[in-house]
């Protein structure tokens, strides 16, 4: 009789569909990746097509330190999730704080770079195709970093207030997935803008 449908209470089936939070975040990441792909394609397509200067070679320098900060924040956020899984709330807070700090350093680095480009090199979004594609691509990524930082700060806030419990570890994992994505995008952006495009 086990093959009759709609049988209530026959719980001999083990049923563990994937968690919806994770699935939802993966979907969001795919959609965001599609957006980034378009901006990256536009950037690559317009490399060397600017009608006037300045060119990337003139003005861009490799943001090695801030990139290292951002990439290592992926490790720290992962550490925060595993700490929460083991119910070590304090350790989780510590790792979260490190992540926010590293992300903040990266953002400050970008801000400094932009300030330098605008005021010392006179490159704005209207200057030429390089300015157009550079500010929009890096800006899009920076926007994602900002969103991620806001969410991470909220998580940190809850964690510090002790409201973050073991059963929230899945939510934190969803957030960490987003952060990993932001980091992964930076690897691509870095390669395209600072290596390929220079």
């Amino acid at each position: 009789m086990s093959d009759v449908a709609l049988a209530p209470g026959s719980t001999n089936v083990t049923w563990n569909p994937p968690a919806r939070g994770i699935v939802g975040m993966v979907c969001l990441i795919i959609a965001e990746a599609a957006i980034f792909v378009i901006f990256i394609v536009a950037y690559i397509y317009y490399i060397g097509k600017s009608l006037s200067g300045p060119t990337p070679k003139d003005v861009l320098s490799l943001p090695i330190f801030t990139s290292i900060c951002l990439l290592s924040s992926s490790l720290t956020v992962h550490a925060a999730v595993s700490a929460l899984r083991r119910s070590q709330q304090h350790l989780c807070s510590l790792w979260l704080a490190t992540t926010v700090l590293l992300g903040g350093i990266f953002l400050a680095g970008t801000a400094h770079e932009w300030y330098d480009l605008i005021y010392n090199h006179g490159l704005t979004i209207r200057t030429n195709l390089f300015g157009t594609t550079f500010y929009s691509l890096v800006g899009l990524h920076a926007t994602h970093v900002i969103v991620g930082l806001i969410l991470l700060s909220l998580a940190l806030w809850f964690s510090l207030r002790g409201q973050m419990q073991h059963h929230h570890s899945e939510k934190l994992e969803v957030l960490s997935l987003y952060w990993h994505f932001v980091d992964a995008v930076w690897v691509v952006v870095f390669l395209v803008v600072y290596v390929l495009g220079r």
Partner: protein
Amino acid sequence: MNSEEVEFQVSHPNQEHGLQLPSPTAWPVVLALGVALLLTGMVTSVMVSILGLVLAFLASVGWFRQVLPDEAHQPVEVQAEPVQVSTTRRLATRLPEGSTSRKIIPVETFRITTGIRGGIAGGAAMAVPAAIYSWVKYHSIWYAMNLLAAGGFISWIGASDAFLSEFHLRGLLAALVIHGLTSVLVGLLYGAMLPMFPRYPIVTAGFMAPLLLTGILHSAIAVVSPILNDRIDWFWFIASQIAFGLVCGFVVNLQAKVRTPQFQALPFSVRAGIHGDIHDRLHDESTDSDGEDTSR
């Protein structure tokens, strides 16, 4: 973003006080309005954008407080009125299940590799008359091959017979791709369809199909490949087609043993597997079905 709700639904379907559903909330619509106004400000006035920003911020906070640390739910009364699922329709005979789940007819059918093998064998066989023709007419076995390849190379359209008689690596590759692809595809088709024509497989595969194909190609070749059209020798073309059909049909036929008398008596649509109504025609023969006919 947690799985509590899922687990809850699955493991405790029957609660005394009814069910828990997410409670209604105005924050999504407020947030949507806020974001919409934020953008609307770009075509109207900055004040609209500011209003939108404020709304969006308020709504984000409100929404956030609803789902964190735990999601808001409200209980819902269950009206215990079981839904009856029934039908007045009776069952018909089902065809018995074969060795694989989608097998309908109680016979062996082909495997995909059969058709591919047949296609390759047929394709090889087809090259023989083509090469003979080339040798007889142009004293070069490469002529037919290059002619076929010219279908894929635009620059060869004005090529001379002498050019076509030489060996060209590009020609070999192009001809191999075109010929190989079509041979395998046609072989697959033979593998799939020969069991549907069980009575005279060799006639069907070896003569009918090639003649049909030649007819179609004859009318289309002028557009598909004018260079081929100018030089094609239809007698030899048919010869090589029949070579393909005979060899491919033979290979497929060797491996697909489906021509039991019982199977041959079935109508075409049943042999093809799109029809299961064999009861009318076969009710005298015991087909060993596990579903009993309830209509008589």
